[in-house]
């Protein structure tokens, strides 16, 4: 999988880093969406869906990739050449993608219920909105890929991802890995 990222990243890098004045925004976004999903829903393992993400959230994450405050292949390389204006234009454009499509496949009712209890206890909805749609710099987590959610939560816990704001570090402090598994399952099957 790493390799597929790298191959994809090389192509993307070539396209994104050469912002010929004539290149339309859609052309520049095409390589991004080849990984992230053209209609806002990602089908690639551990690549997040970007549909429905608030623009300010994507802006701060792209900024953090560029400044190497958030370390993640292949985004650090991809963000390297983006100017501040690029970050604003790209995040505004991506924010227009429709929210990810949730499939009911593989939903485990018991896990979802446990996830709901954990989400309630740890107040996810108070920051991410009751419908988990996110706002401002707080990302959308409803309908996100399960594998990516799990990766993100584990990275907050291990300290690999500090976050633009440390709010998530406080949230995961008292959560177990089982909580992560259940909450990720709940959010991935959100409806």
């Amino acid at each position, binding site marked *: 999988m790493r390799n597929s990222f790298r191959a994809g990243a090389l192509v993307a890098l070539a396209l994104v880093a050469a912002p010929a004045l004539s290149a339309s925004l859609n052309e520049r976004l095409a390589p991004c969406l080849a990984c992230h999903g053209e209609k806002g829903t990602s089908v690639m393992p551990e690549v997040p869906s970007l549909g429905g993400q608030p623009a*300010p959230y994507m*802006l*701060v994450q792209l*900024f953090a990739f560029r*400044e190497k*405050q958030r370390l993640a292949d292949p985004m650090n390389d991809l963000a390297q050449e983006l100017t*501040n204006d690029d*970050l*604003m234009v790209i995040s505004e454009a991506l924010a227009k993608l429709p929210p990810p499509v949730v499939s009911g496949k593989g939903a485990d009712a018991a896990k979802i219920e446990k996830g709901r209890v954990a989400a309630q*206890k740890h*107040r996810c*909805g*108070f*920051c*991410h*909105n*009751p419908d988990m749609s996110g*706002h*401002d*710099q*707080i990302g959308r987590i409803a309908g996100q890929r399960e594998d990516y959610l799990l990766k993100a939560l584990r990275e907050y816990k291990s300290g690999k991802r*500090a*976050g*633009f*704001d*440390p*709010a998530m*570090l*406080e949230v995961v*402090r008292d959560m177990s890995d089982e909580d992560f598994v259940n909450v990720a399952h709940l959010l991935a099957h959100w409806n």
Partner: protein
Amino acid sequence: MPLYLTNPAPGQIGGCQNNPSVVPSGKPGEDGMSSIRKCAVFVCAALWTSTVLGQQTPVGGPPQNQAATKLGPIVGSPIPVSADKLPVAKLKVPAGFKVEVYASGVANARSLAVSDKGTVFVGSRLVGAVHAIRIKDGKTEVKPLVSGLQRPNGVAFHKGTLYIAEISRISRIDNVEDKLGTAPKPTVINEQFPKDEQHGWKFIGIGPDEKLYVPVGAPGNVLVPDYKTHAHIRRMNLDGSGMEIIAEGQRNSVGFDWNPVTKEMYFTDNGRDWVSEDGPEDELNRVRANGKKHFGFPYCHQGNFRDPEFGWGMNCADYEPPVALLGGHGASLGMRFYTGSMFPAEYKDAAFIVRHGSWNRTNKIGGDILLAKFNPDGTVKSLEPFLTGFLQDNTYVGRPVDVAQLADGSLLLSDDFNGAVYRISYAK
């Protein structure tokens, strides 16, 4: 309730913790404060207690209703807003004062330090850079001085040297003004600090004793910290040696200064989250030579409110009480005493206290500067709003962080939400 402020912004709910209040300097109830004031303080404490007890959720949980949504921390953009979009026209100050843009393009402007020659150094929390602002031939020049640092929130200037505080280390750049534009490498003088991100960004300042003061926050909202490593204020020599703890039981102080009359250190401290909409309130504290050295966290908040979780069996009288309460969740950050001569005489030796603005309440408060006036014994005489307007219809148009005085007596104010520094001046 004479000592409460009039609501600084429209749209706020009624109730006591909306506004800062003055509290006695000694033990509550023992210094002859007016019964009105006493009542106000305790009524509020009682209100929270009942809120907490009335909840179905575990103590400290937020209310289970729609109103409690949108509580998340909003940090603004890492990209500064252009000068023409800054909210200066919305800012309100007393008659005779004027607010103007001093510098735009100062990404995520946090703590301020002014050199003798007038160079302004600005720390940041989110963009890893310390910026330098200079006025050259009448033109404002904003340049990054150093970048790639880990949350360099704290800056202090003393005798030609700039001190910078990152999350877990303090460094210095000597003769810094000769090195502007050369990307100087800061020399680390002390890295004996915890690496926690939470409350890890630091304010720093140099005291009248020529020592560098550095607070270490509690590594989370509410917990019993190891006071040897966290939740305290340290000081050290200017070369990083001789570090010692001078006060403990502070949760997260991001601003302090020394009273020019009494020479005592005063610091702001941010109250815990998730107890209630209204509080506990942020504190203005004073480090007294003969005072208690523990300020109460996490057992006793705001001098009279025992933590619903950790306060059982604890006695608030065992801890140094605050000298003023600054509102619930308002995020009181930078504070400086005014020693200049531009402002009217009543401002002399008063303190400006900046409230960044709340996130852990639905009806936001803060986004303003408060003015605290003091009695000769160092207790607080009055507290009132000085600058308001960053909060409009429960939405931030800016988030003020720190104030600093220029040589001419005017006051600079940083705004990390817009990446700007404003100047407040006075003319009759």
